[in-house]
């Protein structure tokens, strides 16, 4: 397999004015040349091969969009090398655009007032798509999803889901080597989500298109991505397949305990939080090793995340049975969602720790 995207030590820094507050500060801001540099992307290297489907994850403000903008040629990196389809994207924005497709979950790139089919015809001209390729793709689209009935509807009259569907199809129309999907399922209902996931996975399979998927929806990741890349605060913190992710923090499993229904009827958040804290401290009091468990409450279901390397699951289970009115018990593997959350939170607390140390030293 050949690499279609090759990134070596990319950095992107933005200059941001050091803003001062207050009226005096506002006047000073007008003349201030006091800039600080913000590293949006900090030394990222990665290689993506032809036909791969990669989940690109990270909390808000992690630098995902910036990396995508560098890959699509809108932004020039501050340092480092990048090759997309064998070209430097920011030097050949327009040429590079011929070989990529881009979809934003909530920003349609189709002509707002025109029926979708007219948008497709215009795109055929814009990308100089040969007749046979166009026909073949249109045929494939209608085989995959039932969309012909949408073709004569203007985009502005469509639902978000229909629009996203058409946007995704249009991004594959010119047989691009790489398609970037930025939160394609954002704001969609469950059935539309699964329809879109099916479409993306089929297009990837049938056309062998490389797909870079950014999302906050772990359902997308579970359904689509075999490999995931996680970045946070501009740095890459994970790049491997999704199966490996589950062992990233050692073994974790969740005990799900169903409590009697009436237990939390009409209880407010404060009371629930107090209950969680109470239960946690009770379990830890009985079993010293269980100090790193994580308890959460959803309706009348209590979840206890157990780090099995530290404490056997069965011990936590028996302790909780002693102190809780248990109606039913389930044991679940850790979900992708909670792993990712742990990664984000872990990284955040690490950096908080660092910054507080720095502060202490400064004082």
């Amino acid at each position, binding site marked *: 397999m*050949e690499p*279609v995207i090759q990134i070596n030590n990319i950095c992107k820094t933005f200059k941001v004015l050091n803003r001062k507050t207050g009226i005096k500060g506002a006047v000073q801001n007008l003349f201030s040349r006091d800039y600080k540099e913000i590293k949006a992307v900090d030394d990222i290297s990665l290689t993506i091969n*032809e036909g791969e489907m990669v989940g690109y994850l990270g909390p*808000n*403000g992690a630098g*995902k*969009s*910036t990396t995508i*903008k560098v890959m*699509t040629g*809108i*932004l020039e990196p501050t340092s480092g090398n990048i090759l997309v*389809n*064998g*070209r430097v994207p920011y030097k050949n*924005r*327009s*040429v590079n*655009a*011929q*070989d*990529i*497709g*881009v979809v*934003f979950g909530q*920003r*349609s*790139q189709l*002509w*707002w*007032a*025109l*029926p979708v089919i*007219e948008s497709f*015809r*215009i795109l055929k*001209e*814009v*990308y*100089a798509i040969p007749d046979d390729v166009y026909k073949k793709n249109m045929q494939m689209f209608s085989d995959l999803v039932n969309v012909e009935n949408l073709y004569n509807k*203007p985009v502005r009259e469509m639902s978000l889901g229909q629009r996203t569907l058409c946007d995704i199809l249009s991004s594959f129309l010119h047989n691009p*080597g790489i398609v970037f999907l*930025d*939160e394609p399922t954002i704001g969609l209902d469950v059935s539309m989500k699964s329809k879109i996931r099916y479409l993306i996975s089929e297009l990837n399979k049938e056309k062998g298109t490389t797909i870079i998927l950014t999302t906050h929806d772990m359902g997308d990741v579970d359904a689509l991505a075999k490999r995931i890349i996680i970045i946070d605060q501009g740095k890459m913190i994970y790049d491997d397949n999704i199966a490996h992710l589950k062992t990233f923090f050692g073994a974790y499993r969740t005990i799900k305990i169903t409590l009697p229904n009436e237990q939390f009827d009409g209880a407010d958040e404060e009371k629930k939080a107090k209950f969680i804290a109470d239960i946690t401290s009770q379990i830890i009091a009985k079993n010293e090793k269980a100090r790193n468990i994580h308890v959460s409450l959803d309706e009348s279901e209590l979840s206890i995340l157990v780090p099995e390397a530290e404490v056997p699951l069965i011990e936590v289970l028996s302790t909780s049975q002693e102190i809780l009115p248990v109606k039913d018990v389930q044991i679940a593997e850790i979900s992708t969602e909670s792993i990712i959350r742990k990664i984000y939170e872990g990284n955040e607390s690490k950096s908080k720790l660092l910054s507080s140390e720095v502060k202490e030293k400064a004082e």
Partner: protein
Amino acid sequence: MENTRIRPIRGFLFYFKIYWMIALQDIKSKMSYRSDFLISTIGMIAVNVSGFLGFWLVFQTFHEINGWKFNEILFLYACLLLTMTPNQIFFDNNWSLRYYVYSGDFVKYCFRPINLFFYFISEVIDVKGFGQFFFGLFLLIYSWIQLQIPVTVGNVVTLLVGLLSGSLVVIALMVAASATCFWLMNSGFIMVYIFKFTDYAKYPLSIFNKFFQVLFTVLIPIGFIAYYPSLYFLRPNDFEWLTLLCPVVGAIMVLIAYKIWMYGASKYSGTGS
């Protein structure tokens, strides 16, 4: 990976064909909202008629302003309406640019393998501008006849060149004004101000004092929208040398405005999503 696809030549015909496809569909879809189309066209004509009534009333009292007669000012006004029309019809998306830029939506225009400015501007065609065009044309023909300007091929061609130059000046001013949003947060008022200044173009520059004459020739060159081109017909024996420069001024201004716009767009990096 080697790129095997041969890039097609992106010449004038390529862009014309795409523009035609978009325009045809856009007009078709706007016509389908019939009442919307009718009301906005009537509204546009009403705005222009009331503007016209304004100085018709003035001329009921004063029969001339600084040596300019009613029909001459009418000719100037007709030229202004016509030179404003291409900007109105084809460059209306200028007014939306700042919303796209501030919301970060502008990024969606950056991924097509065609000229960015063309792609953005071609998106919207404002059909109600045609109402202004026909009203302007009517006034021009009326004043042309009243002024007894001879109908010769030379005159018609000169008029067309003059109107085209004026249109280019309007387009350049508005494109440059809208492009300020790539740098400024409150660029809306710049567009509104520049647009309001074009209103002064319906008066002969010579009735202003020296300061405004220089201002409207050099700094905000609205004199080139209607006044300098129409001098050729209104003062055929002593028009200013600037009249001959009109096409050059128009072309240079459009080029500069386009460069500013493209430079701003290339600086643009979008907001995070």
